[in-house]
Protein backbone atom coordinates (compact mmCIF):
# COMPACT_ATOMS: atom_id res chain seq x y z
CA UNK A 1 0.00 0.00 0.00
CA UNK A 2 2.82 2.42 0.92
CA UNK A 3 4.57 1.60 -2.36
CA UNK A 4 1.40 2.31 -4.32
CA UNK A 5 0.95 5.67 -2.57
CA UNK A 6 4.61 6.55 -3.08
CA UNK A 7 4.31 5.84 -6.81
CA UNK A 8 1.47 8.33 -7.12
CA UNK A 9 3.35 10.87 -5.00
CA UNK A 10 5.92 11.29 -7.78
CA UNK A 11 3.29 12.85 -10.08
CA UNK A 12 2.83 16.66 -9.91
CA UNK A 13 -0.81 16.55 -8.72
CA UNK A 14 -1.50 14.31 -5.77
CA UNK A 15 -4.93 13.71 -4.39
CA UNK A 16 -7.72 16.13 -5.16
CA UNK A 17 -11.06 16.47 -3.41
CA UNK A 18 -13.16 18.35 -5.93
CA UNK A 19 -16.01 19.35 -3.64
CA UNK A 20 -16.33 20.41 -0.01
CA UNK A 21 -18.85 22.79 1.49
CA UNK A 22 -17.62 23.74 4.99
CA UNK A 23 -19.95 25.19 7.60
CA UNK A 24 -17.55 28.01 8.52
CA UNK A 25 -14.09 29.42 7.86
CA UNK A 26 -12.76 27.69 11.02
CA UNK A 27 -13.93 24.35 9.62
CA UNK A 28 -12.18 25.19 6.34
CA UNK A 29 -8.90 25.87 8.16
CA UNK A 30 -9.16 22.55 10.05
CA UNK A 31 -9.90 20.79 6.76
CA UNK A 32 -6.89 22.38 5.05
CA UNK A 33 -4.53 21.25 7.84
CA UNK A 34 -5.91 17.73 7.71
CA UNK A 35 -5.75 17.62 3.90
CA UNK A 36 -2.14 18.70 4.00
CA UNK A 37 -1.31 15.82 6.38
CA UNK A 38 -3.13 13.36 4.12
CA UNK A 39 -1.26 14.46 0.99
CA UNK A 40 -3.96 16.33 -0.88
CA UNK A 41 -2.72 19.05 -3.21
CA UNK A 42 -6.00 20.77 -4.12
CA UNK A 43 -9.58 20.96 -2.91
CA UNK A 44 -12.67 22.32 -4.62
CA UNK A 45 -14.60 24.62 -2.30
CA UNK A 46 -18.20 25.60 -2.94
CA UNK A 47 -18.32 28.83 -4.94
CA UNK A 48 -21.12 30.30 -2.83
CA UNK A 49 -19.10 29.69 0.35
CA UNK A 50 -16.01 31.40 -1.11
CA UNK A 51 -18.11 34.39 -2.17
CA UNK A 52 -19.80 34.63 1.23
CA UNK A 53 -16.55 34.47 3.22
CA UNK A 54 -14.25 36.27 0.78
CA UNK A 55 -12.92 38.75 3.32
CA UNK A 56 -12.39 36.15 6.08
CA UNK A 57 -10.50 33.83 3.73
CA UNK A 58 -8.37 36.70 2.43
CA UNK A 59 -7.55 37.70 6.01
CA UNK A 60 -6.30 34.14 6.76
CA UNK A 61 -3.23 35.14 4.83
CA UNK A 62 -0.08 33.30 3.93
CA UNK A 63 0.35 31.93 7.45
CA UNK A 64 -2.48 29.45 7.01
CA UNK A 65 -2.98 29.13 3.26
CA UNK A 66 0.72 29.22 2.41
CA UNK A 67 1.70 26.84 5.19
CA UNK A 68 -0.82 24.21 4.17
CA UNK A 69 0.13 24.48 0.45
CA UNK A 70 -3.26 23.15 -0.56
CA UNK A 71 -4.80 24.93 -3.55
CA UNK A 72 -8.36 26.16 -3.22
CA UNK A 73 -10.45 25.80 -6.37
CA UNK A 74 -13.91 27.32 -6.74
CA UNK A 75 -16.50 24.66 -7.55
CA UNK A 76 -20.08 25.23 -8.61
CA UNK A 77 -22.39 22.49 -7.34
CA UNK A 78 -25.50 22.77 -9.50
CA UNK A 79 -28.62 21.05 -8.22
CA UNK A 80 -31.63 21.41 -10.50
CA UNK A 81 -34.59 19.82 -12.24
CA UNK A 82 -35.28 20.02 -15.96
CA UNK A 83 -33.09 20.88 -18.90
CA UNK A 84 -34.02 24.58 -19.08
CA UNK A 85 -33.08 25.32 -15.48
CA UNK A 86 -29.89 23.26 -15.88
CA UNK A 87 -28.87 25.26 -19.00
CA UNK A 88 -29.33 28.60 -17.26
CA UNK A 89 -27.41 27.58 -14.15
CA UNK A 90 -24.55 26.01 -16.14
CA UNK A 91 -24.19 29.18 -18.28
CA UNK A 92 -24.03 31.34 -15.14
CA UNK A 93 -21.49 29.05 -13.43
CA UNK A 94 -19.32 28.71 -16.56
CA UNK A 95 -19.08 32.49 -16.92
CA UNK A 96 -17.63 32.72 -13.40
CA UNK A 97 -14.88 30.26 -14.44
CA UNK A 98 -15.24 27.49 -11.88
CA UNK A 99 -15.33 23.71 -11.95
CA UNK A 100 -18.92 22.54 -12.45
CA UNK A 101 -20.51 19.52 -10.78
CA UNK A 102 -24.02 18.72 -11.94
CA UNK A 103 -26.40 17.06 -9.51
CA UNK A 104 -29.60 16.27 -11.41
CA UNK A 105 -32.96 15.79 -9.75
CA UNK A 106 -34.55 14.23 -12.83
CA UNK A 107 -33.52 12.27 -15.91
CA UNK A 108 -33.64 15.17 -18.42
CA UNK A 109 -31.25 17.26 -16.32
CA UNK A 110 -29.03 14.17 -15.88
CA UNK A 111 -28.80 13.67 -19.66
CA UNK A 112 -28.18 17.39 -20.24
CA UNK A 113 -25.30 17.39 -17.77
CA UNK A 114 -23.86 14.26 -19.38
CA UNK A 115 -23.66 15.70 -22.91
CA UNK A 116 -22.62 19.26 -21.93
CA UNK A 117 -18.84 19.65 -22.01
CA UNK A 118 -18.89 22.51 -19.50
CA UNK A 119 -20.05 20.15 -16.76
CA UNK A 120 -16.90 18.23 -15.77
CA UNK A 121 -18.54 15.93 -13.22
CA UNK A 122 -22.05 14.51 -13.19
CA UNK A 123 -23.09 13.32 -9.76
CA UNK A 124 -24.45 9.79 -9.68
CA UNK A 125 -27.43 9.43 -7.38
CA UNK A 126 -28.96 6.08 -6.32
CA UNK A 127 -32.04 6.55 -8.51
CA UNK A 128 -29.93 7.04 -11.65
CA UNK A 129 -27.67 4.02 -11.18
CA UNK A 130 -29.62 1.86 -13.63
CA UNK A 131 -29.32 4.59 -16.28
CA UNK A 132 -25.57 4.06 -16.39
CA UNK A 133 -25.34 2.01 -19.56
CA UNK A 134 -23.51 2.12 -22.89
CA UNK A 135 -25.59 5.11 -24.11
CA UNK A 136 -24.79 7.08 -20.98
CA UNK A 137 -21.11 6.17 -21.37
CA UNK A 138 -21.19 7.58 -24.94
CA UNK A 139 -22.89 10.77 -23.75
CA UNK A 140 -20.28 11.24 -21.05
CA UNK A 141 -17.47 10.72 -23.57
CA UNK A 142 -19.10 13.31 -25.88
CA UNK A 143 -19.23 15.82 -23.06
CA UNK A 144 -15.81 14.72 -21.73
CA UNK A 145 -17.36 14.43 -18.30
CA UNK A 146 -16.84 12.01 -15.48
CA UNK A 147 -19.32 10.37 -13.14
CA UNK A 148 -18.94 11.54 -9.59
CA UNK A 149 -19.77 9.71 -6.39
CA UNK A 150 -20.33 11.69 -3.22
CA UNK A 151 -18.83 9.68 -0.35
CA UNK A 152 -20.92 11.54 2.22
CA UNK A 153 -23.79 9.18 1.26
CA UNK A 154 -21.82 6.36 2.83
CA UNK A 155 -21.21 8.30 6.03
CA UNK A 156 -24.87 9.16 6.41
CA UNK A 157 -25.98 5.58 5.89
CA UNK A 158 -23.53 2.62 5.81
CA UNK A 159 -26.29 0.60 4.18
CA UNK A 160 -25.40 2.47 0.97
CA UNK A 161 -22.48 0.04 0.56
CA UNK A 162 -24.61 -2.19 -1.65
CA UNK A 163 -25.59 0.76 -3.86
CA UNK A 164 -21.96 1.86 -4.06
CA UNK A 165 -20.88 -1.62 -5.12
CA UNK A 166 -23.49 -1.67 -7.93
CA UNK A 167 -22.64 1.87 -9.04
CA UNK A 168 -18.89 1.25 -9.19
CA UNK A 169 -19.27 -2.06 -11.02
CA UNK A 170 -21.45 -0.41 -13.68
CA UNK A 171 -19.10 2.52 -14.07
CA UNK A 172 -16.09 0.24 -14.47
CA UNK A 173 -17.96 -2.11 -16.81
CA UNK A 174 -18.53 0.71 -19.31
CA UNK A 175 -15.04 2.24 -18.77
CA UNK A 176 -16.46 5.56 -17.59
CA UNK A 177 -14.20 7.99 -15.77
CA UNK A 178 -14.96 7.98 -12.09
CA UNK A 179 -14.33 10.77 -9.60
CA UNK A 180 -14.78 10.46 -5.86
CA UNK A 181 -15.28 13.45 -3.60
CA UNK A 182 -16.12 13.85 0.05
CA UNK A 183 -18.85 16.55 -0.08
CA UNK A 184 -17.71 17.31 3.49
CA UNK A 185 -19.30 19.96 5.69
CA UNK A 186 -17.11 19.25 8.72
CA UNK A 187 -13.46 18.27 9.13
CA UNK A 188 -14.33 14.73 10.30
CA UNK A 189 -16.10 13.92 7.02
CA UNK A 190 -12.93 13.81 4.92
CA UNK A 191 -11.48 10.70 3.33
CA UNK A 192 -7.88 9.52 3.58
CA UNK A 193 -6.50 7.76 0.44
CA UNK A 194 -5.92 4.59 2.49
CA UNK A 195 -9.56 4.60 3.52
CA UNK A 196 -10.65 4.88 -0.13
CA UNK A 197 -8.23 2.05 -1.04
CA UNK A 198 -9.73 -0.18 1.67
CA UNK A 199 -13.24 0.76 0.62
CA UNK A 200 -12.62 -0.46 -2.91
CA UNK A 201 -10.83 -3.61 -1.72
CA UNK A 202 -13.72 -4.41 0.66
CA UNK A 203 -16.21 -4.03 -2.18
CA UNK A 204 -14.23 -6.47 -4.30
CA UNK A 205 -12.52 -4.02 -6.65
CA UNK A 206 -8.85 -3.11 -7.01
CA UNK A 207 -7.82 -0.48 -4.51
CA UNK A 208 -5.83 1.31 -7.23
CA UNK A 209 -9.09 2.15 -9.02
CA UNK A 210 -10.20 4.03 -5.93
CA UNK A 211 -6.92 5.94 -5.83
CA UNK A 212 -7.26 6.83 -9.52
CA UNK A 213 -10.71 8.22 -8.78
CA UNK A 214 -9.07 10.65 -6.34
CA UNK A 215 -6.96 12.05 -9.18
CA UNK A 216 -9.42 13.36 -11.80
CA UNK A 217 -8.05 13.34 -15.37
CA UNK A 218 -8.89 17.04 -15.81
CA UNK A 219 -6.61 17.96 -12.87
CA UNK A 220 -3.40 16.62 -14.38
CA UNK A 221 -1.94 20.13 -14.88
Amino acid at each position, binding site marked *: *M*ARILAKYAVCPVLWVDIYVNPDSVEELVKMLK*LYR*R*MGYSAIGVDRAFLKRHKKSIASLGEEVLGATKVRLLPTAYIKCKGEREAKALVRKAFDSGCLIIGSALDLSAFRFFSRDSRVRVVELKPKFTMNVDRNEALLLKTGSSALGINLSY*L*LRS*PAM*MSWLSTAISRVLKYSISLVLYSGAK*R*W*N*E*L*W*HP*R*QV*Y*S*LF*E*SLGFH*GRQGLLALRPFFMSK
Partner: protein
Amino acid sequence: MSYDLLFELTLALLLVALLAATIRFYTRTMRLAARIQEIERLLSAILKHEKLVPTSRALNQQLKKRKRYIVFRVISEAPIKTEDLERAIEETLTTLFGKPSIGDSRFSLVYHSDESGYGIIRVSSDWKNRAILALSLVREVNRSKTFIVPIRTTGTIRKARETISSRS
Protein backbone atom coordinates in the same frame (compact mmCIF):
# COMPACT_ATOMS: atom_id res chain seq x y z
CA MET B 1 -6.66 -75.53 46.30
CA SER B 2 -9.15 -77.70 44.44
CA TYR B 3 -8.64 -78.64 40.81
CA ASP B 4 -11.93 -76.93 39.79
CA LEU B 5 -10.80 -73.56 41.14
CA LEU B 6 -7.42 -73.96 39.47
CA PHE B 7 -9.09 -74.86 36.22
CA GLU B 8 -11.41 -71.84 36.35
CA LEU B 9 -8.51 -69.48 37.18
CA THR B 10 -6.49 -70.78 34.23
CA LEU B 11 -9.48 -70.39 31.93
CA ALA B 12 -10.01 -66.80 33.07
CA LEU B 13 -6.34 -65.92 32.48
CA LEU B 14 -6.47 -67.49 29.05
CA LEU B 15 -9.58 -65.47 28.18
CA VAL B 16 -7.96 -62.20 29.31
CA ALA B 17 -4.84 -62.97 27.29
CA LEU B 18 -6.97 -63.79 24.26
CA LEU B 19 -8.87 -60.48 24.64
CA ALA B 20 -5.65 -58.50 24.91
CA ALA B 21 -4.20 -60.22 21.85
CA THR B 22 -7.37 -59.51 19.89
CA ILE B 23 -7.30 -55.83 20.78
CA ARG B 24 -3.58 -55.60 19.93
CA PHE B 25 -4.13 -57.35 16.63
CA TYR B 26 -7.09 -55.10 15.77
CA THR B 27 -5.18 -51.89 16.58
CA ARG B 28 -2.16 -52.99 14.56
CA THR B 29 -4.40 -53.89 11.65
CA MET B 30 -6.11 -50.50 11.75
CA ARG B 31 -2.76 -48.68 11.84
CA LEU B 32 -1.49 -50.80 9.04
CA ALA B 33 -4.61 -50.16 7.03
CA ALA B 34 -4.27 -46.42 7.56
CA ARG B 35 -0.62 -46.55 6.51
CA ILE B 36 -1.45 -48.57 3.43
CA GLN B 37 -4.19 -46.07 2.59
CA GLU B 38 -1.79 -43.14 2.97
CA ILE B 39 0.80 -44.80 0.72
CA GLU B 40 -1.89 -45.53 -1.88
CA ARG B 41 -3.02 -41.89 -1.79
CA LEU B 42 0.51 -40.58 -2.25
CA LEU B 43 1.21 -42.97 -5.11
CA SER B 44 -2.01 -42.06 -6.92
CA ALA B 45 -1.29 -38.35 -6.48
CA ILE B 46 2.22 -38.79 -7.89
CA LEU B 47 1.00 -40.85 -10.83
CA LYS B 48 -1.84 -38.44 -11.65
CA HIS B 49 0.41 -35.36 -11.06
CA GLU B 50 -2.14 -34.10 -8.56
CA LYS B 51 -1.52 -31.59 -5.79
CA LEU B 52 -0.87 -33.39 -2.50
CA VAL B 53 -3.31 -32.50 0.28
CA PRO B 54 -1.39 -32.22 3.54
CA THR B 55 -2.01 -34.48 6.52
CA SER B 56 -4.27 -33.32 9.29
CA ARG B 57 -1.51 -31.74 11.40
CA ALA B 58 -0.10 -29.73 8.51
CA LEU B 59 -3.66 -28.90 7.42
CA ASN B 60 -4.45 -27.53 10.86
CA GLN B 61 -1.40 -25.31 10.70
CA GLN B 62 -2.45 -24.04 7.28
CA LEU B 63 -6.01 -23.35 8.41
CA LYS B 64 -4.75 -21.39 11.42
CA LYS B 65 -5.53 -17.78 10.52
CA ARG B 66 -2.78 -15.24 10.36
CA LYS B 67 -3.24 -12.02 12.30
CA ARG B 68 -2.71 -8.46 11.23
CA TYR B 69 -2.06 -5.51 13.49
CA ILE B 70 -3.39 -2.19 12.21
CA VAL B 71 -1.78 0.94 13.64
CA PHE B 72 -4.05 3.99 13.60
CA ARG B 73 -4.32 7.45 15.05
CA VAL B 74 -7.46 9.04 16.41
CA ILE B 75 -7.95 12.77 15.80
CA SER B 76 -10.79 14.13 17.90
CA GLU B 77 -12.16 17.23 19.56
CA ALA B 78 -12.04 15.72 23.05
CA PRO B 79 -9.99 12.84 24.55
CA ILE B 80 -11.62 9.49 23.89
CA LYS B 81 -11.73 6.58 26.30
CA THR B 82 -10.53 3.19 25.12
CA GLU B 83 -13.84 1.47 25.98
CA ASP B 84 -15.84 4.03 24.00
CA LEU B 85 -13.57 3.68 20.98
CA GLU B 86 -13.76 -0.11 21.08
CA ARG B 87 -17.54 0.02 21.33
CA ALA B 88 -17.76 2.45 18.40
CA ILE B 89 -15.57 0.25 16.17
CA GLU B 90 -17.55 -2.87 17.10
CA GLU B 91 -20.83 -1.09 16.35
CA THR B 92 -19.55 -0.03 12.93
CA LEU B 93 -18.33 -3.55 12.15
CA THR B 94 -21.72 -4.94 13.17
CA THR B 95 -23.59 -2.37 11.04
CA LEU B 96 -21.48 -3.09 7.97
CA PHE B 97 -20.96 -6.83 8.12
CA GLY B 98 -23.32 -8.19 10.74
CA LYS B 99 -22.93 -9.50 14.27
CA PRO B 100 -20.88 -12.61 13.34
CA SER B 101 -18.20 -10.27 11.94
CA ILE B 102 -16.84 -9.58 15.43
CA GLY B 103 -16.08 -13.27 15.84
CA ASP B 104 -15.08 -13.97 12.24
CA SER B 105 -12.65 -11.06 12.12
CA ARG B 106 -11.23 -11.89 15.60
CA PHE B 107 -11.24 -8.17 16.22
CA SER B 108 -9.52 -6.89 19.35
CA LEU B 109 -8.37 -3.43 20.41
CA VAL B 110 -4.87 -4.28 21.58
CA TYR B 111 -3.59 -0.84 22.52
CA HIS B 112 -4.91 2.70 22.69
CA SER B 113 -3.47 5.83 24.28
CA ASP B 114 -5.89 8.61 25.30
CA GLU B 115 -3.10 11.21 25.18
CA SER B 116 -1.37 10.57 21.87
CA GLY B 117 -4.37 9.05 20.10
CA TYR B 118 -2.37 6.13 18.70
CA GLY B 119 -3.86 2.68 18.80
CA ILE B 120 -3.47 -0.88 17.52
CA ILE B 121 -6.20 -3.30 16.57
CA ARG B 122 -5.72 -6.98 15.82
CA VAL B 123 -7.78 -8.70 13.14
CA SER B 124 -7.60 -11.81 11.05
CA SER B 125 -5.53 -11.29 7.86
CA ASP B 126 -8.48 -11.65 5.47
CA TRP B 127 -10.42 -8.98 7.39
CA LYS B 128 -7.70 -6.33 7.11
CA ASN B 129 -9.36 -4.12 4.49
CA ARG B 130 -12.79 -4.44 6.05
CA ALA B 131 -11.37 -3.47 9.43
CA ILE B 132 -9.74 -0.35 7.93
CA LEU B 133 -13.09 0.51 6.31
CA ALA B 134 -14.83 0.14 9.67
CA LEU B 135 -12.22 2.44 11.23
CA SER B 136 -12.83 5.01 8.47
CA LEU B 137 -16.57 5.05 9.09
CA VAL B 138 -16.16 5.88 12.79
CA ARG B 139 -16.72 9.65 12.66
CA GLU B 140 -18.24 10.27 16.05
CA VAL B 141 -17.47 8.76 19.44
CA ASN B 142 -19.50 9.84 22.45
CA ARG B 143 -20.82 12.90 20.57
CA SER B 144 -17.26 14.02 19.89
CA LYS B 145 -16.20 14.44 16.25
CA THR B 146 -13.53 11.88 15.40
CA PHE B 147 -11.34 11.01 12.45
CA ILE B 148 -9.34 7.79 12.48
CA VAL B 149 -6.30 7.70 10.22
CA PRO B 150 -4.94 4.25 9.38
CA ILE B 151 -1.13 4.42 9.50
CA ARG B 152 0.32 0.97 8.94
CA THR B 153 -0.53 -2.72 8.84
CA THR B 154 1.99 -5.19 10.26
CA GLY B 155 2.17 -8.91 10.88
CA THR B 156 3.65 -8.67 14.36
CA ILE B 157 2.75 -6.60 17.38
CA ARG B 158 6.41 -5.74 17.85
CA LYS B 159 6.56 -3.94 14.52
CA ALA B 160 3.30 -2.16 15.31
CA ARG B 161 4.69 -0.88 18.63
CA GLU B 162 7.90 0.22 16.90
CA THR B 163 5.82 2.23 14.41
CA ILE B 164 4.09 4.05 17.26
CA SER B 165 7.30 4.70 19.21
CA SER B 166 9.05 6.08 16.08
CA ARG B 167 6.14 8.48 15.47
CA SER B 168 5.79 9.51 19.09
